[in-house]
């Protein structure tokens, strides 16, 4: 059996562009990013277990401009994957397949993830008492 020329998934170029597709790709992209980002959470915990010096190194990274940028992206990726994941779970139980509903929930999930990101950072900065 010749296996060399079989079509392999995913072959996105055959589809007309639509937002659901972009959200689906972003879901996968944020998923992979979060998998890598989880290493930061592991580093944080391991450093805390190792002692104050190692913990201070993590804090130094977290409060640097680069660290803040990474954590901002991490927060958005997390909330996006969470909100869009709920959308996927609703599809799994058979809800919201009508194109207009699917698109509307997509926008809601996207907006909710931005709002949640802003709220989480406001909470963080408020409790820290400034920048």
């Amino acid at each position, binding site marked *: 059996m010749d296996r060399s020329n079989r079509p392999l998934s995913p072959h996105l170029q055959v589809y007309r562009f639509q937002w659901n597709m972009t959200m689906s790709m972003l879901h996968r992209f944020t998923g992979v990013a979060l998998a890598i980002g989880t290493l930061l959470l592991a580093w944080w*915990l391991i450093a805390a277990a190792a002692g104050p010096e190692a913990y201070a190194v993590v804090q130094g990274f977290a409060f640097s401009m680069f660290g803040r940028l990474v954590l901002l992206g991490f*927060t958005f990726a997390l909330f996006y994957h969470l909100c869009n994941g709920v959308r996927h779970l609703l599809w799994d139980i058979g809800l919201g397949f009508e194109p207009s509903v699917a698109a509307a929930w997509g926008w809601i999930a996207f907006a909710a993830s931005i709002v949640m990101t802003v709220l989480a950072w406001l909470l963080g900065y408020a*409790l820290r008492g400034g920048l």
Partner: protein
Amino acid sequence: MTLRSPLGRARGLGSARLGAQAWWLQRITAVALVPLTLWLTVSVARLTGASHSDFTIWVAAPWNAVLMLVAIATTFYHLKVGVDVVIEDYVHTPWIRISLLVATWFAAVLVGATSAFAVLKIAL
């Protein structure tokens, strides 16, 4: 000419009714991660700039330690199943694909176990 039966050749190459298991566990861990992630992000936001002693006291509180351990196990399982799907979709060379699938298993278990050990070391 092969001495293998058609059934023997087919085994392990397609549906053995095991595919649904990964799909189902991905959904169960996803549902569990909704409250766990909300709890963790609020907690982390509240711990912004916490000193080492503040942070370790927080981790050592019984409910925090238990939920952290549950969150670690759930997160790393969900992560592994999710990354598997991506590898299976894009990596078409069999030996590279299998190597990556095994490598992500090892990495997920190693980092997950180390994280869990860190929580236990702080809490106990």
